[in-house]
């Protein structure tokens, strides 16, 4: 979930907001019913009202929706916007929407449960033939010379200041990707389209695609950069491409992503780089895998470098935690688990938080329960 200052940064991303507003203005007509999906502080809901919407449903699971209510009231729009604090997948509307506007993805469309949520909203909340904003995303990638971005993964471990071998941490750090930008002088290849999502039809949450580049100049390659070209409505797009086609400033919330290679590789003009990128939704988040092969110019059978990396290898794990990821693991309730079960059972019986906290204090040792009331209240917020 985002803080109010995070939302401030999003709203302050003016080129992005301007493009969204332009797209909304084009499709919203007097009488339109609009859904603002993942409304946050409700800017899109307010804009929908300004552009003539008859009714707006602002759906947001986080408590930020209270701020959205207050902002709507401050602008005299409380009567037009219905605020619904829930996951959109749990919401049923009294009428289908003509327009659904959302910005709940990450830098790429493959972010948490973004795609299943959009597809669900399209099926259940949108009138047949209705409009989705955005309409589609195209994701591009390019091989880059980016010593600074690569160093952000490796430098803390290579240069720890005490000459310790910190390779185990370095290995993990090279199996993750981070936001990062480059200039077009740092591109060693053209931008290639890697994958695309059309929100009007998307029904697949995973992506698996290959991209092949030919280096257009020599240089030390550190990995590849992935970015987005978003179409909000026909003719209204924004892009974070570092070449001249980019329309977003480098400070945009839609930063590009840098996928580091295990080691930098010297490439010559004409060398080829094949990358297989894959993102698979596991639980509520994606596991990313990237396999890279660098070959010399005209030497298809001579491999200069080959890497296989995955975010599955990025997190520090203890053997005990590792065991718990396995489908065959049989968990046993800990003391904390028994406490949570006690609280959930009491909630199911309709007891007040105060009474549950009192009962909890009687049943469990004080050393485990410094603040029973807060503990019960936290569980009640989540499950009550």
């Amino acid at each position: 979930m985002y803080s109010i200052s995070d939302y401030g940064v999003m709203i302050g991303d003016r080129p992005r907001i301007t493009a969204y507003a332009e797209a909304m203005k084009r499709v919203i007509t007097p009488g339109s019913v609009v859904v603002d999906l993942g409304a946050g502080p409700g800017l899109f809901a307010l804009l929908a009202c300004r552009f003539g919407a008859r009714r707006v449903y602002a759906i947001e699971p986080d408590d930020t929706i209270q701020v959205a209510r207050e902002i709507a009231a401050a602008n005299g729009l409380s009567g037009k916007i219905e605020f619904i604090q829930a996951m959109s997948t749990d919401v049923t509307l009294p009428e289908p929407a003509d327009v659904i506007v959302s910005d709940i993805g990450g830098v790429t469309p493959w972010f948490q449960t973004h795609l299943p949520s959009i597809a669900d909203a399209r099926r259940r909340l949108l009138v047949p033939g209705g409009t989705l904003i955005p309409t589609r995303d195209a994701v591009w990638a390019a091989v880059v010379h980016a010593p600074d971005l690569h160093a952000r993964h490796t430098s803390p471990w290579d240069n720890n200041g005490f000459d310790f071998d910190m390779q185990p941490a370095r290995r993990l750090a090279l199996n993750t990707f981070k936001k990062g930008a480059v200039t077009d002088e740092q591109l060693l290849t053209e931008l290639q389209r890697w994958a695309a999502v059309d929100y009007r039809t998307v029904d697949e949450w995973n992506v698996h695609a290959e991209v092949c580049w030919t280096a257009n100049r020599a240089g030390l390659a550190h990995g590849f950069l992935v970015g987005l070209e978003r179409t909000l409505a026909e003719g209204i797009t924004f892009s974070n491409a570092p070449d001249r086609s980019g329309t977003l400033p480098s400070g945009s919330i839609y930063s590009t992503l840098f996928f580091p290679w295990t080691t930098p590789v010297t490439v010559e003009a004409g060398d080829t780089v094949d990358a297989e990128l894959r993102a698979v939704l596991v639980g509520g988040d994606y596991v990313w895998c990237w396999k890279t092969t660098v070959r010399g110019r005209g030497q298809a059978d001579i491999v200069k470098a080959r890497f296989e990396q995955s975010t599955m290898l990025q997190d520090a794990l203890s053997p005990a935690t590792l065991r718990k990821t396995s489908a065959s693991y049989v968990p046993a309730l800990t003391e904390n688990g028994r406490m949570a079960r006690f609280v959930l059972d009491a909630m199911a019986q309709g007891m007040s938080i105060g009474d549950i906290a009192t009962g909890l204090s009687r049943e469990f040792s004080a050393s485990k329960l410094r603040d029973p009331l807060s503990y019960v209240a936290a569980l009640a917020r989540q499950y009550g």
Partner: protein
Amino acid sequence: MTRISLDHTFQVSKDAIFRDLDGEAVILDLQSGTYFGLNAVGAHIWQLLVRDGALRTAFDDLCREYDAEPAVLERDLIALVSRLTEARLGAVK
């Protein structure tokens, strides 16, 4: 279903990602999004199979490395390969 023997080879799935830690391991099947746990011996067998899919080669390595009856090692190897195959983490040929 094919009765697995030492004459078979095991081809590790391209959808399997292996992570080991202090000898134990977990394999993520990207097709199903499920995790498959391996104890220390299982993790070692997986690595032998990645290096050379021939079950007989893996069996010979196990006989050299473990002080156990060959019949027991063969049974354990084939049982694990059977479970890995059922979990679609590889295919027997």
